[in-house]
């Protein structure tokens, strides 16, 4: 089990945007949420961690191991990722889609074994979608689709799960379901769950750690109770917000 994810002088840019994080340590076996305005670099940061965009060596470390020096399959066994949007061309069955999470363990010229199939079935069970195996992905609701994709990262057997806006487009019930699942993954399975979120209340109430980003940089990070205050929110979002404690949780008024 990994102990820490360290970011040191990470820099990655597109035409008119640059992500630049000098120093950040993310805790393992916890739920960390990354928040910030649109275009703050949250998704780009996840992509860097996931290895789907090229980052320079000596910038991302897992327990001191440089992630950029790992082979793709080796990295995928440590870190799994669900992008913000998935564009599926073919309408696969749920179990076939979850099974794809095993790709790092299977040679390009081979097919999944019984063991891979069991792992995929167990992942589906864990997210509460037992009985959905032969359903087609297109027939599922947005909430169920999210759960299938989380099951796929689970089938990947990686310690670190990166979920890019897993609750967008979900109704409150499904939003809570997904966030509870994230907590369960951290608590029961010891996974490190890193999510980007737009709903601040969800982030505050469901994460162990929060990372606030603005214009490609980390503005603050830490436990919600310790770092969260109105002036930080105003700095990050450029609007005034008020935080009100209620029933052990926090409500944020805009």
């Amino acid at each position: 089990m990994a102990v820490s994810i360290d970011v040191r002088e990470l820099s990655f840019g597109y035409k008119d945007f640059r992500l630049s994080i000098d120093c950040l340590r993310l805790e393992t076996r916890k739920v960390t949420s990354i928040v910030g305005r649109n275009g703050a670099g949250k998704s780009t940061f996840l992509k860097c961690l996931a290895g789907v965009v090229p980052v320079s060596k000596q910038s991302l470390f897992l327990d001191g191991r440089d992630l950029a020096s790992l082979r793709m399959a080796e990295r995928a066994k440590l870190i799994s990722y669900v992008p913000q949007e998935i564009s599926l061309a073919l309408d696969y069955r749920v179990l076939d889609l979850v099974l794809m999470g095993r790709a790092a363990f299977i040679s390009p010229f081979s097919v999944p074994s019984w063991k891979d199939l069991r792992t995929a079935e167990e992942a589906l069970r864990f997210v509460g979608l037992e009985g959905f195996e032969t359903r087609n992905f297109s027939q599922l609701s947005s909430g169920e689709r999210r759960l299938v994709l989380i099951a796929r990262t689970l089938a990947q057997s990686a310690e670190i799960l990166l979920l890019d806006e897993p609750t967008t487009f979900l109704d409150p019930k499904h939003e809570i379901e997904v966030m509870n699942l994230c907590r369960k993954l951290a608590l029961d399975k010891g996974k490190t769950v890193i999510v980007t979120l737009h709903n601040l209340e969800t982030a505050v109430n469901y994460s162990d750690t929060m990372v606030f980003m603005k214009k490609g940089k980390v503005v603050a990070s830490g436990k919600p109770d310790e770092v969260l205050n109105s002036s930080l929110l105003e700095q990050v979002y450029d609007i005034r917000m008020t935080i009100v404690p209620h029933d052990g949780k926090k409500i944020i008024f805009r």
Partner: protein
Amino acid sequence: MQNKKAKILTVLFFLLPFLLTLASLSIGRFHVPPKDLARTIIQTISPSTGPRVPTAYQDILFRIRLPRLLLALMAGAALSLSGASLQALFKNPLVNEFILGISFGAAFGAALSLVFLGKNFPAQIAAFIFSLIAVLAVLLISGRSESHTISILLTGVIVSAFFQALLSLVEFFANPYALQSLFFWLLGSLSLATWKDLSISLPIMAVGIVALIMMRWRLNVLSLSDEEAKSMGVNVRRERLLVILFASLITAAATAVAGVIGWIGLIIPHLVRMMVGADNRKVIPLAAALGASALIIADDITRVAATFEIPIGILTSIIGIPFFIILLRRSRKVWL
């Protein structure tokens, strides 16, 4: 119960091309009765046993029909498999073997040989070389851009158009006799198959077909977005090139000896996906089996339908297009 039925059907589909090959040996202008078919085979294996059959049977079956049927079997499997793999790889139901410039590359190669080079440089070899040149050009021009799949497809269209223009240029300069043989080559035909041609093209097709069938599950993962496939540990660029390489090799080998045969690579994969759904673990092997069967049946029709032989490329289009229209109307939604 349904599962059992599906299994029996699957076994039947895989046996179908071989049964059809056997049955088709007796079909043709010169009828060979089934009982003589068995006798001829036995006599060829062990010449001293069994009752004598006319020696003409041996010539017809083993020198003319068997190579032709083997070519139909392998080329049908190759064209269908190549279409099915490339459609999954490029996440697009309209992709076929024409898209990477393979067909027009081959056509130009054959034209060059038939019109200018003559017997020194056989059409089959020229077709094979130029179809691979076309694919290489597509891959080199499309380069390392971010949206690699789209740029490969667009470059394929351009390279195809370029080779089509070169083909027209050769046709313009050709004398009437050369033009006629080129015309027939372009319509596709299995009738010229000889063991000598097949000795090169069949092993190439066999290697590519086996490799793509082995990669059938990987094609599921490669049909996801590049980002997702990468995050699952797949070296997308390398594996995409491998699939393109095998698909190009088998299409080039098939086109080089059989000419341009359209529609197999589009219709059969669609039919198979309608039957079994999206999972390439089932789609790929079944596409190979049904593609082989379809081309054998098409070839049988060209031999018996008229007193002259209808070019197979025309037949696959004439039968294929109405069939495709029916398929589209009844289509189960497999593509999103």
